[in-house]
């Protein structure tokens, strides 16, 4: 970012998310927004992570707990084709993790209610294929 002099920026050290006026922005996905260079979307916090979440679509029930709890809007939910009662329809579903903005806090895995979990925290350097292949089995309720 270009370093500017004291008289060259807005007072109050405020930062604008967009350079232009925007309309209806809540209905536009992050990747389709024309964020200004000052918006935190332009910065990565990936290097903060020690552990990363891995998403396993096979167990996910689309409850969106992780989406609500994620402090960095890094759970990606998008329209995708799903099968319901034999019919294929478009529905908002979990599609994965935004690894650029995920800082690895683990809240998503912690709040995931499925058994086994649909999100697991693993070492940052683990390979997704290996983790998915060794996903834990259903624990079941203790008797």
């Amino acid at each position, binding site marked *: 970012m270009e370093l500017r002099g004291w008289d060259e*920026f807005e*007072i*109050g*050290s405020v*930062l604008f998310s967009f350079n232009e*006026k*925007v309309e209806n*922005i809540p209905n536009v996905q992050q990747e389709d927004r024309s964020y200004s260079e000052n918006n935190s979307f332009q910065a990565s916090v990936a290097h903060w992570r020690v552990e990363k979440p891995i998403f396993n679509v096979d167990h996910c029930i689309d409850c969106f707990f992780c989406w609500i709890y994620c402090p960095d809007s890094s759970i990606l939910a998008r329209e995708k084709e799903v099968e319901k009662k034999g019919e294929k329809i478009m529905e908002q579903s979990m599609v994965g993790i935004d690894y650029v903005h995920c800082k690895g806090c683990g809240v998503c895995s912690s709040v995931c209610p499925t058994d086994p979990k649909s999100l697991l925290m693993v070492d940052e350097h683990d390979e997704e294929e290996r983790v998915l292949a060794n996903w834990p089995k259903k624990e079941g309720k203790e008797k």
Partner: protein
Amino acid sequence: MAEKMELHEVEVWDGNMAASHALRQAQVDVVAAYPITPSTPIVQNYSQFLADGQVDGEFVMVESEHAAMSGCVGAAAAGGRVATATSSQGFALMSEVLYQAAGMRLPIVLCVVNRALASPLNVNGDHSDMYMGRDAGWINLCSYNPQEAYDLTLMSFKIGEDLDVRLPVMMHQDGFICSHTAQSVRALDDDSAYKFVGDYIPKNPMLDFEKPVTYGSQTEEDWHFEHKARQHNDHMNSFPVIERVFKEFKELTGREYNLVEKYHMDDAEIALVALGTTVESAILTAEELRKEGIKAGVVSLRVLRPFPFIQIAEALKGVKAVATLDRSLPGGALGMLYNEITASLYHSEHRPLVTNYIYGLGGRDMTIGHLKEVFKETKANADAGKLTVPIQQFIGLRGPKLTFY
């Protein structure tokens, strides 16, 4: 829509009530407060106005002064006219957020009813809280009496909200001596007062969804300095706006305010400089001494921040000796007025002799007798052409005479 109040031409208000009415007439959008002695009645009166349908804005009771000023910051960033009141320990607890408000350039009005800072705990008036906050980046206005508390609170909005200034403003009045002393106050009618203050003009409000904005960003060594310099520049250059608002207020009411106030200074040989209620006592004292042929004058800072560096030296031009009276004891140093005014006078052509008197801590009385004594010592300095007393002395202090330098 809030009911208007019919005011008498002359109301009998104490300084707190005067400030409350100024907040009411300015049609503040949000007051977030945690009341503390002696400023409690400002928000108490205000909440009564609200309960009686005379105020439209929100009144938010919070859990501490830190939260009170934080609430004010949030409301001001959202895009509203915001005010609150505090004193002493409450002011101290706000201090972190005072710097935030100034850095975010939010024109909040804070009615400060000056009170001593613990320890030991004390509810009475001195200027310790004012001195503590003087570097926080706020504009600081000082009043002597309820009339001025009313006038300057109204003007605080107009000064701070000016688009060339956009800084928060503290309006100081002395705890109890001003805040709880009822006097005659000539207030503007509600319509005229609001017209004078004007509609609030939001700047980069968070509630503008077409232009989303982040307040409270973090900047490190590559940006922080520039932001603080910009803030300082706009603060230092706020004098013309302050003077313009003073002028417009005079046109409306006939009541005159200046950056630096001068009393009996035209032919003065010696002068006292003080803040707040003590100024009125000092003027009375000067008038009595003039009957004895002593050419005594009084100078006060109406605007403590930005510090009127040029104007204070100009006001003291021609005097032979000056006594600076600090109603707070900066730990381990000479008084603030002494240090800052001496710095200003250092660059003047005829450097007068300057002494420092610490007085009135924790509400200790400052009498005409004390002030006469100060004037007479100052006269002795002027006559001798050198200091005849130590630089720092203490008025009305028991025990062995305490002096420094």
